[in-house]
């Protein structure tokens, strides 16, 4: 299959949507500049005109409200927030208006809207350019939340989000922009609410979101070297999330680790872990592990960033903790646990 980068896949989805549907418009900050969106929106204004690709003033709240109003009046807007942190100024129209209108007007008016937000972690950008706030929005009835981790999903989920008659928050991660993968040239959708099993395995289930889904695959490779066969699920949609696929996997393996790029307390991983404990209680043989950011704002200095962002080894370590828990309960020794814990201790020191 043809290879595209994640950013190119997002760009292609935009172009095909703009091409096929005259109701589509893009509105937000930085649309005419590569500074904000990398190549993910490159030259859309050239190809589709500055009347449909509206690079807006810094007015996150009103611009988002405008997108909602345009959606209510029959358009299919994509409103763009180049840093998720900036989108906090638009939480009122997103939650009070977009999420609520279908319900509180009994379906008589609906908001078919894509709200695109970029997580722009790391790079010494600090606490107001780096936040991953998807869990806040996952909390809200009426919103859908997607977080693609592959170029294929980046395109297919954007096209599905635009087709959906509801407000969909589409969150992409700048760390993924250079990842390449197979992307069909034609238009296609990836269904909302369906997870992808990236790797089948029998011993433990690793559930990842966005960048952490990619890290989970790397963790599975680390575990494989130690003889552990991990199943990896990329959640792809956080709301509504695919309980069936996750539950079926955990029922099979009996062990689970959730890896998420947000904070720990009341985070996405907490929700998924709680649900697993209800849906697969009988099979679960150890507490569901969570790999998340610590409950600390994003630091700026490079050295602190290294300690802040979890990586594959942390997911593998969490998997070993679950395996060890299981082994202790069964009083069966687990190979090489000590070595891994040492590695982990060295990393966090």
């Amino acid at each position, binding site marked *: 299959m043809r290879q595209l980068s994640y950013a190119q896949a997002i760009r292609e989805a935009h172009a095909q949507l703009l091409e096929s549907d005259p109701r589509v*418009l893009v509105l937000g900050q930085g649309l005419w500049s590569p500074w904000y969106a990398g190549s993910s929106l490159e030259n859309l204004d050239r190809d589709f005109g500055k*009347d*449909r690709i*509206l690079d*807006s*003033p810094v*007015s996150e*709240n*009103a*611009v*988002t*409200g*405008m*997108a*909602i*109003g*345009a*959606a*209510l*009046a*029959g*358009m299919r*807007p994509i409103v763009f927030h180049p840093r998720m942190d900036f989108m906090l100024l638009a939480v*009122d*129209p997103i939650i*009070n*208006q977009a999420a609520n*209108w*279908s*319900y*509180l*007007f*009994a*379906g*008589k*008016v*609906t*908001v*078919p809207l894509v709200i695109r937000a970029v997580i722009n972690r790391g790079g010494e950008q600090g606490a107001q350019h780096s936040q991953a706030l998807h869990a806040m929005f996952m909390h809200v*009835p*009426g919103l*859908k939340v997607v977080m693609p981790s592959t170029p294929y999903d980046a395109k297919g989920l954007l096209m599905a989000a635009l*087709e*959906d*008659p*509801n407000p969909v928050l589409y969150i992409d991660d700048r760390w993924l922009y250079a990842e390449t993968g197979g992307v069909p040239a034609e238009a296609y959708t990836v269904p909302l609410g369906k997870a992808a099993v990236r790797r089948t395995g029998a011993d433990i289930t690793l559930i990842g979101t966005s960048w952490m889904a990619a890290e989970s695959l790397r963790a599975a490779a680390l575990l494989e070297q130690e003889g552990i066969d991990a199943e990896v699920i990329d959640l792809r949609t956080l*709301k*509504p999330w695919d*309980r069936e696929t996750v*539950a079926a996997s955990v*029922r099979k393996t009996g062990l689970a680790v959730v890896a998420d790029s947000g904070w720990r307390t009341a985070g996405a991983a907490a929700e998924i872990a709680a649900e697993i404990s*209800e*849906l697969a209680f*009988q*099979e679960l043989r150890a507490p569901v592990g969570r790999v998340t950011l610590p409950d600390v704002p994003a630091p700026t200095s490079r050295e602190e960033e290294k300690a802040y962002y979890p990586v594959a080894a942390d997911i593998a370590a969490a998997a070993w903790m679950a395996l060890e828990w299981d082994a202790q309960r069964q009083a069966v020794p687990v190979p090489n646990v000590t070595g891994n814990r040492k590695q982990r201790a060295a990393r966090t020191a």
Partner: protein
Amino acid sequence: MKCSTKWYLERWQIMTLIRRAEEAVAEMVEKAEVGCPCHLCVGQEAVAAGVCAALTPEDTVWGGHRSHGHYLAKGGPLEGLFAEILGKATGCAGGRGGSMHLVAKEQGILGTVPIVAGTVSLAVGAALAYKMRGEKNVAVAFFGDGTLEEGHVHESMNLAALYRLPVIFVCENNLYSSHMHWKLRRVADNLHKAGEFHSVPGFRLDGNDVGAVYEATRKAVKRAHAQAGPTLLECRTFRWRGHVGASYDLDVGVKRRGELTGWMTQDPIRRVADYLIDHGVADLAAREQAIARQIDRAMQAARQAPAPSPTRLGQFVYAAAAGANAETAGANQADGSNGAIPSAHRQAALAEVLCAN
């Protein structure tokens, strides 16, 4: 007054309908028949009636918590209003919204919400849609004076001016934001100038003069049609009742009896009635009785209408995709439940999962 007698009679009909309907609502509030917060616009009817007289059915209006008048003036069905306020399934929003959430898509009332300034940017977005599609519609954002103290209203005015959008900002300045007189909130009495910095021309009007409101709106519509951009209208008026509920505020610590008495002599409906009587209209009393009967009938129907079924509690959280059965949209819940009785459903789902092993 430049309009015809017939035109004024039509405005009198609408304003009287709004007044009598709201007085009926006030009665229900006093009798505790209504639970949801009701914000009445008694005394302000000329703004809604004057603005909507200048609009077509395709033009849209967007409102706030005090929008019974906007809804009725734009042609929203009376029974749908009463039923909504009573929380009935036949309400304009299916009983989901109450007094503060009114909708009537066919009449161009796309939605009213009580978050102050909540629909101002939405109206601007609708205007963007009209401009992009080359349609002649205009969008009207109705809001109170307190709304101009919200920051994103200024973002909205800038965007509307920048993109030259067919939107009209109608500020109903009734001098109070909830219990707060404007002097406690602002240094200068200059709301009509709020758009100046954004190149949005503003006009101060006697909001109790329905003809003046109509004329100013007509000019704003013309300006919108000429793609010259938005207009701000500051309509000076006064609400007789309190911020919320049936009282006149005199009982909740707001001292404004003198002010209220003064404004009552400026009753916008009385002014039109005096004009009509001067111009030979002799049957206002009979017309008023007919309006009263219309209100009684609608109220009766609303009272007898069924309440929404609790089994549909989760319905419409999400809109169903095109082609899906609207009746099953209730099952379209993010958590996979139908939302009917969440805990019971949850148990059932869990049982199903356990049985599946």
